[in-house]
């Protein structure tokens, strides 16, 4: 990527009418193909015997780690959330880690990709909320504690989506930009160091994106949790009285 390009959207390979084939799309499909084919190759011959193969072990560690994190953040069963949050985490992680490959630009360094991911979260929050506590109870959350808070709650929902998109974009874009600038200044050793630092930020950003998505989804399902807690408390009080 050149210094002048801030996003890989600006590198267009092929154009026909309003259809553009730019670097972001190519790289996104490459990452998706890599993940799907890789997962298929690893799970093709799954057996229950020991010893585990190396790659199977890797996937188990990943899935188990994600389940544990989701459980610790949401205090709920990770089962319904794992497919969505796990996909977000793995996609961002793989596309950020591949940044060390020469000629590759992370698709997350483009605002269109991160905006799409953030919109997925924006849609998923009411989806999970309505599924767990029903439409009426979910919408009632917006007027808590009073009706005056309604515009602020709606604004908060929108602005955190924007923040989610711009945070990932800014971090990844700044990483590749700094490497591009340093290549022009000190060509040999220093860009390698910054690239290693970029790997660290890439992994942390993938983690943060997934954790924030999970926190937002968990706060959307809060209504049911509160109801269950109140029921448990009233049951306890009855038990004490009786």
């Amino acid at each position, binding site marked *: 990527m050149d210094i002048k390009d801030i996003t890989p959207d600006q590198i267009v390979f092929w154009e026909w009418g309003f259809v553009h084939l730019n670097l972001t799309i190519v790289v996104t499909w490459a990452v998706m193909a890599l993940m799907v084919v890789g997962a298929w190759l690893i799970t093709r011959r799954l057996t229950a015997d020991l010893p585990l193969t190396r790659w199977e072990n890797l996937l188990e560690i990943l899935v188990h780690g994600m389940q544990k994190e989701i459980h610790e953040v949401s205090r709920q069963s990770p089962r319904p959330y794992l497919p969505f949050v796990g996909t977000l985490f793995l996609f961002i992680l793989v596309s950020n880690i591949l940044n060390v490959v020469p000629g590759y630009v992370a698709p997350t360094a483009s605002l269109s990709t991160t905006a799409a991911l953030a919109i997925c979260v924006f849609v998923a929050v009411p989806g999970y909320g309505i599924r767990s506590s029903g439409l009426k109870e979910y919408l009632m959350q917006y007027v808590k504690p009073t009706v005056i808070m309604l515009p602020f709650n709606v604004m908060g929902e929108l602005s955190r989506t924007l923040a989610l998109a711009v945070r990932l974009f800014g971090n990844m874009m700044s990483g590749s930009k700094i490497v591009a600038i340093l290549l022009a200044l000190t060509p040999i050793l220093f860009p390698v160091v910054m690239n290693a630092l970029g790997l660290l930020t890439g992994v942390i950003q993938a983690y943060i994106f997934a954790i*924030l998505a999970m926190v937002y989804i968990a706060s959307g399902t809060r209504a049911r949790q509160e109801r269950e807690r109140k029921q448990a408390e009233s049951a306890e009080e009855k038990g004490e009285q009786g």
Partner: protein
Amino acid sequence: MEGISLIGMASVLSAGLTIGIGAIGPAIGEGRAVAQALSSIAQQPDEMNSITRTLFVGLAMIESTAIYAFVVSMIIIFANPFWDYVVANAGG
């Protein structure tokens, strides 16, 4: 030519000011957050996992203000709409 030099000057100055001033607040905030987290870990080493996780999420939240400033300064330098407008007018 007057417009180009004026806009170039204003862009460079404001890009530097944007990232310079915009980094102060988040830097102070992150420093305070990390200091608090370190002293909490020193007091309760058993809670290190949950403190670290909350710290990372909080740092990401604080950092996003600095990232906004950075994105704005990048736009001013590399994708300045006023600059493009003036260049297009001067060219044709």
